């Protein structure tokens, strides 16, 4: 199976391991990630304003590139995923916006939001299947009590993201079970870590991330997994008492390819 892949700027710099593990694991699971040529940064945050057009063009270019190859578009970073999925949704539902974008980009065929966007986790669930992952696990993470951290970007706004129940999600928990570990459910898993104000208001970011990590630790978690480089940075920097790792790293470990990945 071949899919288009949008790594995003953070995965090319500060979160190279998130990217490297993702590629390696996909290989093991029989998925070829074809990186989109000349992709541009998504901008890291989606503007809900209907008159913001220029800032969304890079996302549309990536979506269009995938559409030209008739492939779904896969992202790993929560922020890229959020921005690209929301942009795609706006292309589908806001005719005035889509018209402006198409006039600006002047593609041969206008783009109307046809590409299907998957987060890497959704790819694991819907295209690969957690059962298949379970079969491929050589190094089960037995005994590890792991807290899934969704943050805000993966699930919200639910109307657009449609990834899972936004208040009672299970996709990462199912992933944790698939690799043999035990998920820890805690209420703050879908609360914001304050990542977007990490520069603007470090105190607020610290307060929010501490609330999340202490809630996870109180629930008995030994480790947290996330898909978002900014969440991880924020939680770690603000002194999480338990380790915070990328879900792809755990997956690589479970599939037995962690060591031979050049992260």
């Amino acid at each position, binding site marked *: 199976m071949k899919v288009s892949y949008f790594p995003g700027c953070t995965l090319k710099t500060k979160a190279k391991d998130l990217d490297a593990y993702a590629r390696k694991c996909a290989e093991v699971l029989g998925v070829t990630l074809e990186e989109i040529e000349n992709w541009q940064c998504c901008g890291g945050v989606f503007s809900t304003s209907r008159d913001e057009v220029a800032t969304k063009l890079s996302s549309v270019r990536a979506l269009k590139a995938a559409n030209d190859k008739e492939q779904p578009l896969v992202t790993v970073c929560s922020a890229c995923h959020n921005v690209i999925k929301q942009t795609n949704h706006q292309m589908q539902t806001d005719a005035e916006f889509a018209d402006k974008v198409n006039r600006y980009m002047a593609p041969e065929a206008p783009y109307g939001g046809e590409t299907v966007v998957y987060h890497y986790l959704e790819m694991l669930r819907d295209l690969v299947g957690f059962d298949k992952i379970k079969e491929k696990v050589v190094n089960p993470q037995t005994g590890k009590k792991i807290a899934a951290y969704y943050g805000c970007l993966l699930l919200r706004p*639910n*109307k657009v993201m449609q990834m899972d*129940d936004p*208040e*009672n999600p299970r996709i990462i928990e199912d992933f944790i079970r698939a690799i043999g570990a035990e998920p820890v*459910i*805690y*209420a*703050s898993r879908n*609360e914001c870590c304050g990542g977007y104000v990490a520069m603007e208001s470090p105190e607020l970011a610290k307060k929010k991330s501490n609330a999340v990590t*202490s*809630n996870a630790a*109180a*629930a008995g978690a030994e480790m947290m997994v996330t898909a978002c480089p900014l969440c991880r940075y924020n939680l770690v920097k603000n002194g999480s008492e338990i380790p915070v790792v990328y879900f792809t790293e755990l997956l690589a470990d479970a599939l037995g390819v962690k060591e031979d990945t050049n992260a």
Partner: protein
Amino acid sequence: MQRIGVFVCWCGSNIAGTVDVQAVSDALAHEPGVVFSTNYQYMCSQAGQNMIKDAVAEHKLTGIVVCSCSPRMHEATFRKTAAAAGINPYMVEIANIREQCSWVHKDMQTGTEKAIILGKAAVAKVNLNTPLTPGESPVTKRALVIGGGIAGIQTALDIADAGFPVDIVEKKPTIGGKMAQLDKTFPTLDCAACILTPKMVDVAQNDKIRIFSYSEVTDVKGFVGNFDVTIKKHARYVKEDICTGCGACTEKCPMKKVPNEFNLGMDNRSAIYIPFAQAVPKVATIDPNYCNMLKNGKCGVCSKVCAAGAIDYTQKDEFIEEKYGAIVVATGFNPISMDKFDEFAYNQSKDVITSLEFERLTNAAGPTAGKLLRPSDLKHPHTIVFVQCVGSRCDACAEKGKEYCSKICCMYTAKHAMLTRDKYPDTEVYVFYIDVRTPGKNFDEFYRRAVEEYGVHYIKGMVGKVTPEGDKLKVQASDLLANKQLHIDADLVVLAAAIEPDKSARPLATMLTASMDTNDFFTEAHPKLRPVESPTAGVFLSGACQGPKDIPETVSQAGAAASKVIGLLAKDKLTGNPCVASSNELMCNGCSTCERVCPYGAITYENKEFRMPDRTTAIRRIAVVNPAVCQGCGCCTVACPSGAMDLRGFANSQIIAEVDAICK
């Protein structure tokens, strides 16, 4: 050709003041079919009516046109006159020359011209009238009540009181419904069991009432006065007539780990069980999903300990067919699932509960024997947060919850808060509200007492997130009046979950062809004037199946539904409205369009054999209107693509004749 008599009324000067009645009767005398035309001061008077009768005899009239006041006023009068004179009452038409002519116009010439045209239209219509006879159908003098909660119980008792037999079908092993689960009832705080269980006993002892418990309606055929209903009685593996309800079996049953639905899963029961002490019928039931004997043939303890020998592992589901004259729907409600509202952590903490669960927690017969202990560690909670409107009043585009107000939550939350403060004054109680809605006798006074006398903290705002951490529930909420975000460490959070109709209501509505709204509440025949009747004749509504209701409202609606049923069953025969739709079988092609628009389910289809011109026979599907069910709105006549459907008394040809007469 008709022989029509025209009778123009002066109505004193009411008509004659603005309409030249002589000119009208003269003008109409020359209309086709008219053989007699006259005018008189008061057509509706005895003398006027006699004038009509005499004219019928003298001129051998077959049709009558009365130009007078509105048909809403005296149509019935003149139809009776016609019948007395030996003419079919439906051969009478009224031209409304008072309310819609003389009273709204001032000028004699204008009024007269219009009156003539209206008269001509009526004459044109009568020319095409046909004699109509209302159909008659017998009434089976027995009522069916579906649902055995307080609504069904009250309806059944009231019907039985009037002397008619009633059957109650209840899907649970006992009647009693939601009210049996409640602790106290607002605003008087009398205990629910104390006022409900005597009624349940009344039902059991009433020789006019039969209870089909652990049963459901699986099929309904027929129409008002003549329903044929199939009831499925689930096998309870206990002979109902022999079981004494002693409870020895439930005590000895080794399978004790079955979630107890009566306590909403907060404790366990045995596989053979009696839902609660005052159950009616007080008969044990074996839960086949948990009974080892039924699952793998190993056990049989209950059979051994039953002194009466009531256990029967071979019992099968039983189907009962019965005839009814009227059906009352009383299927009630349930709280909605809290799955989509997990920001309140209902699925994450045992100490986040719904209000119905709170009722069980405070009920003396509940899992904690009435002591307010929180489910997780059975400790006494010191801080309790109540959240109102959970899932009520949601916008459709929010994709979760219900759009309506659940109506009962403000009052029961005030009750819970008040009772908690009364029994446990050391407990801090917070109620987060959007609006407090307490219309009802002594309701607002009750809520104010909770605040003023019992010191419940009512906070205008909403809870945004509940985070269980350690043994606390961290509640994050807004206080809109203080413009603050509050953080409360609570021990117990109680959610006032929205209520929704029972899931069994939708398939039942389909069986009954009774209409429902988008929320699956049954629709009433008229929202103001016929609130306890379904638009489907013979089907009546009782309780929360029609919309959210508290107990006083439910009981009054139950009584109202019963009185409507009694009114129906008191009749020996039902006389229909003869102005109903009928289908011309030669033109009908059985396309089902009419069936889909009929709000009453009056149209069915049958396969009928036709002789074709080439002497072969063909079987064609044709529409058949049940005149006992059709109410004569005529919607189907317009929907029919082949023009096969027509309405008696308001036929296409008749209305077109009126149009032509007016436009001539």
